[in-house]
Every structure is written in C-alpha cells, then in structure tokens.
C-alpha cells in the first residue's frame, strides 16, 4: 500500500494531469502544423480563423435552441458552427487574394473583422433574446486552461496524434507543397487535395484548442514554436521536431508555473514561456541567433586580421632580402625567422594602434609570434607556416583572378582583399589544384602584380 501511495503522491493531482496532457498535446499539434503555415506565409491565418468563428458560435447556439427543446449550450452545434465559419473565413481570404487585387494582409484583416462583426451582431441578438443559458456565450472564445476537462484533454491528444501521423506520412509531399507549389503540380503530387487537408486539420486543431485554451494562446502556439525552430535550423525535419518540442515545452512550463503561482493565468503564462524560448533562441540560435552570428563575425574578423598581419611580415621579409630567397627552390626557413620591426612591416595598413595591439596579442597567444624587444618581433615556426600558407593562398587567388577572371593586373590586389574573408581552406585547396604546375616550379609564387 505504501508504495502505491507514495507514487500517487509524487504525481500531480488528477485534474492537473489532465491539463498537462491537454496543453502538451496542443503544443505538439500546433508546433507541427504551424511550421507549414509559417512556410506558406500564412501565420496570421490562425488569428483570422479564431476570430471568425464567433458567428458560428452564436449561430450554432441560436439554431440549436431553435430546433431542440432542451436548454443549454449544445457542444456539437457550437463546434460545427465554429468549424463552418472558420472554413468560410479561410475561403474568403483565399478568394480575395486570388481573385481581387487585395493583398494577403488586407484579406486577413477584412476576413477577421468582417466575420467577427457579423458574430457580434448575432451575439447581440442572442443576448437580447432572453433565451435560457445565453449568458457567458461571449466567453466561449476565451477558454479557460485551468478548467479543462478530461474529454477535452483527450480530444487535444487525438488532434496531436492525427497531426503527427499526417506529417510523418506526407512529409515529402508537404515539403514540396511548402517550398515549390509549381513543382508539386508538375510531379503529379496531390497538391490541391493536400493543401485542403492541411488547412482542414489546422482548422480543427485551432477550433478544438479555441474552446479549451482560448484564442490568443492558440495563435501564439501556432506562430511562436515554428519561428523558434527556424532560428536553429534550415532542415525541414529538424524544424518540425524542434517546433513540436518548443510547443510542448512552452506549454508544459507555462502550465506548471501557473499551477504553482496563485493568480497566474495559465494561457498567458504559456504564451510567455513559449516566447521566452523564442527570445533565448533569438540570442543563441545556431542558424540566426544574434550572439551566434556576432561570434562568427568576430572569429572571421580575427582570422582575417591575423592573416593580413602575417602576410605583411612575409612580404616585407621577402622584400628585405632583396633576392627572393623565400621563393622558388632556394627557400630558406632560417632567414624567414629573422627579427623584424613591427611598425615598418605593417606601415601600409592603416590600422589603429588599438587594433594593431589586439592583433599582436592574439597572434602571441596563438603561439605564432614572439616579441623580442620593444617594437620588434620574430615569427615562430608555427607562425611561419601560417604566414607561408596565407601568402600562398593570397597569391594563388590573385593569379586565378588574373588568368581566369580577366581582372587587370593593377586592380587585382583590391579584388583579393575583398574576397579574402570568404577564401576557405577548401577554396585554397582548389586553387592549389589549378596551379599545380606552377607550384612545382616555385614553392610559393611571387606577388604576381609586382612582376
């Protein structure tokens, strides 16, 4: 007895478990479907659909009280009404975009307020009709997360299962549909049918969710998780997985917080938890994160400046020896390791004294440079290797541009500077393959534009 008791003590109470199951399912379903909405640039459609269901709710109520004697909100009538008007609003948007000159944003806004306005008219009829149980109908669209019942929770679970299965089965077709509609048509894939299926499933999820968690939370869950996933990856499968994960995690965290902090509304805290995930991804995301991109930029900047410095040292020493000792067959590493004067070496670069100091420090830390006396330094063996590498790649690029891209000799230098930051090791490898013969004659070619 004690074990079972302890276990049930650890688990959250039953009504909370119902809520967790419901919101996590919802997060997964919207996370998956939202990706396709985002790819098709229809994110705000969930907003329009959500608002446009109002006449369905009011009309469903009026119809059901007209045809049946029993008083009360007939769940099925309201659901079918919402579904009908949600579907109508999508059709209205598509009609306006396809057949009139109205653009998508205007079509969404018009459909949203048009249907909502009609809904409010019907609602004021309801309110003044004196029908029993009419009060509270206007709150129908602003569901309460905390009062979710078991049936609703299982419905959301079912919706999540359907969404996952559909996504897994038709991944290839959906991929084609989202990224190249024309291609889908030419390949004979079920393009119209699939589009309608996708919209219908999204609609059902939105409306089931609407009545349990409310309009704003639904649209937040349709929009934020996919946008979060896009900050991390370009790959469709990973996007879908990450998006479903974000939706589930945000929903669970929000519900957990709201269960433990009194007065904290669950819907709003789920939105905030999910958007917190978004903003964290905006900073650290692998693909588009601000800090990530800054770090990449900083790394490239640093490598570029180091290479430029090392090349300047190399060119300078080469020039000082009068004969091209480093080049051709008579290359001597020993001579290359002589001491040089820093300021003279990089006189051609107009680097600020701070930047110069930064580069020297970073090279010293990397073990490429040794300071011998004030203002003087030598390359280490490692530094020399890097300098040779940098000079070689630079000169080969110049040769390439002169021979293959027909850029005049006197201009070639500035072109190389411009493309230097994108010269990756792979490109350097290719260059070496192109100038194989030349490299057999001379280990390091001369500066081509100074010849």
């Amino acid at each position, binding site marked *: 007895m004690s074990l079972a008791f302890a276990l049930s003590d650890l688990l959250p109470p039953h009504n909370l478990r119902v809520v967790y199951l419901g919101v996590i399912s919802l997060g997964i379903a919207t996370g998956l479907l939202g990706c396709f909405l985002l790819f098709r640039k229809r994110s705000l459609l969930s907003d329009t659909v959500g608002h446009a269901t109002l006449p369905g709710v009011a009309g469903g109520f009026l119809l059901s009280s007209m045809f049946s004697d029993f008083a009360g909100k007939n769940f099925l009538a309201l659901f079918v009404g919402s579904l009908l008007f949600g579907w109508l609003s999508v059709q209205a948007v598509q009609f306006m975009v396809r057949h009139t000159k109205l653009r998508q944003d205007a079509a969404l806004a018009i459909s949203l307020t048009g249907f909502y306005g009609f809904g409010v008219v019907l609602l004021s009829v309801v309110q003044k009709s004196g029908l029993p149980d009419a009060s509270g109908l206007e709150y129908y669209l602003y569901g309460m997360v905390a009062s979710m019942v078991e049936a609703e929770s299982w419905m959301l679970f079912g919706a999540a299962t359907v969404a996952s299965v559909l996504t897994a089965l038709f991944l290839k077709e959906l991929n084609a549909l989202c990224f190249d509609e024309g291609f889908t048509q030419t390949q004979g894939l079920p393009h119209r049918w699939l589009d309608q299926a996708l919209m219908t499933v999204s609609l059902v999820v939105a409306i089931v969710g609407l009545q349990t968690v409310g309009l*704003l939370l639904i649209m937040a869950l349709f929009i934020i998780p996919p*946008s979060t996933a896009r900050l991390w990856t370009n790959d469709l499968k990973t996007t879908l997985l990450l998006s479903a994960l974000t939706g589930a995690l945000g929903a669970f965290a929000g519900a957990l917080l709201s269960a433990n902090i009194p007065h904290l509304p669950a819907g709003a805290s789920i939105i*905030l938890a999910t958007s917190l995930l978004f903003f964290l991804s905006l900073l650290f995301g692998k693909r588009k994160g601000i800090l990530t991109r800054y770090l990449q930029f900083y790394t490239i900047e640093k490598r570029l400046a180091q290479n430029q410095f090392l090349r300047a040292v190399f060119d300078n020493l080469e020039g000082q020896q009068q004969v091209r000792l480093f080049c051709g067959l008579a290359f001597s590493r020993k001579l290359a390791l002589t001491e040089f004067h820093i300021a003279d070496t990089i006189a051609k670069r107009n680097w600020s004294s701070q930047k110069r100091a930064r580069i020297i420090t970073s090279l010293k830390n990397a073990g490429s440079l040794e300071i011998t006396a004030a203002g003087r330094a030598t390359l280490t063996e490692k530094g020399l290797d890097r300098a040779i590498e940098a000079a070689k790649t630079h000169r080969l690029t110049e040769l390439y541009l002169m021979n293959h891209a027909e850029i005049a000799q006197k201009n070639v230098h500035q072109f190389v500077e411009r493309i230097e930051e994108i010269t990756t090791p792979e490109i350097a490898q290719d260059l070496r393959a192109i100038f194989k013969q030349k490299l057999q004659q001379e280990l390091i070619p001369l500066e081509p534009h100074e010849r």
Partner: protein
Amino acid sequence: MTWLTLDTWIVATSALVAIACVLPGCFLFLSRQSMMSHGISHAVLPGIVIGHLVTGEVDTPALFIGAILAGVACAVLTRFLQRLSGVEEGAALGISFTTLFALGLIMQRLFADNVHIEPNHILMGNLEVAVFSSISPESQLPETFIKAGIAALVNLFFVVIFFKELTISTFDPNHGDSVESRPRLMYYLLMTLSAVTCVVAFEAVGSILVVSMIILPPAIASFFTKNLKHLIILSVLFAVLGCGLGHVLSITTFGPLFAKAFQLNDYSSTNTAAGITVVLCIMLVIGIVQSKLIRKG
C-alpha cells in the same frame, strides 16, 4: 423607428471615430500592414496596466499614454524581430503582440486584480454606452465625441502636412532614404498615430472592430480609384456612409431580421459598431463585384 438625439450622437461619434481611423488606415493598407492595427489594439494592454500601476488610478491620462507607448512598442518590436530573425512579417507581428498581451494580462492578474477589465467591453466595444458619458452633467456632448474629434483633427493635420513624405515612405522607402524624407521617422509617426487612434476608438467600437474601421474603407475605395488623394477622400466618405447606414440598420433591420430567421419573439437593436462592420463588408462586396463587371464589360 424612433430617432432620438442619442442616435444622432451615436452616428456623429462613430463617424468621427471612423474618420480618425481611416486617415492612418489608408497608409497602413497601402504599405501592406493591415494586420498591424489588430496587433496594436491587443498590445496596448500592458501599457494600460503599467499606467494604472504607476499612478494607482483608473481614469488618468497615464493609462492613455501607457497604451500609446505599448502600441508603438509593438510596432518597433515587430520590425526588430523581422530584421533580426528573418521570420516573415506576419509571424513577427504575431509573436510581438501575443507576447505583449500575455505580459499585460499577467501583470493585471498579479498586481492589479482589483481593476476589472471587462473583456466583452474591450473586445466588442459599445457605442450605445459610450455616448452616455457626457463631458458635464448639463450638456449632452459625449466625451468620446470630443476625443474622437481631436484624434481626427490631429490625424488630418498629420496627413496634410506630411502628405509627400508619407506617400514616399509608403510606396518606396528606399527612394525616401535617398531624398531625405525620413521614411523610418514617418513609419514610427504613423504607428504612433495609429496607436493613439486605436486607443480612442477602443472605447467606442472595441479592439477588434477598430480594425474594420481602419482597413475596410480604404479597401473599398481601392476598387474605385488609383489616385492616393482620391483614395483618402473616398475612404472617408465610405466610412461616414457606413456609420450612418450601419446604425440605422442596427436599430431597425438586423434585430428583426435575425429574430425572424431564428424564430425568436423578442427583438431590439443590435450592436452598432458591429452593424457598421457588416455594412462596410457589404460595400466591399459591391466594390469587388463592380470591379469584376467593369473588367468584363
């Protein structure tokens, strides 16, 4: 039908609100930011709550200022997200306004739960109630009428003074940059005015129907003209016409119509703001049909 003085006030107030909405609305519509008005009208909530928390009162200008700042914050955040994360504009707007709204809701529940903000009132608005609160006991002049009038005047001045700059920044911001007409400043000014207008229109028509006042008249007018000046003038005319017709139909037709359709005995007037929206939608349909006929004929 019995026409009371109150009915005149309702039509006059709604017409002023509509004029105030349409003026920035034309530019929002043309620069493909129709949904921005919807976003702003939700995003004002945290501003209102912060305004209340700072001053500790319910009826102060601080709430008004807070709402406007929050509305502008929504526009700024949307632009920022779109530029930094590269998500499409709709998604950026969705993220920023749902987040702001949730923030406002949580602040209200945690710190200002005693202030009751009626969702029904905010979301649907109630012109019939709004005109009751007059500026002084003696006069019948409704407060909303004065506010909407000021907003309409301010917007009118703005559009007249900055007509050239607004036109450039709406159609070609890059050109605007090159001729120094400050397209970004114009954008933020336009957003500020939209926020002001949304907040004023809030009380009268509610946060969702305000979108119809902002977007529908320019959308209807766009089927009749291509000239920007004509578009603005036509929009204003359509908006005013919509307000008059909307109210008349609301007190005479919609109620009995639906009561009959659903076999109800009691009927009375329906919500005017919603009636105006429905009338504007019908006008839009006429506009669409008209444009199709002309193209065929």
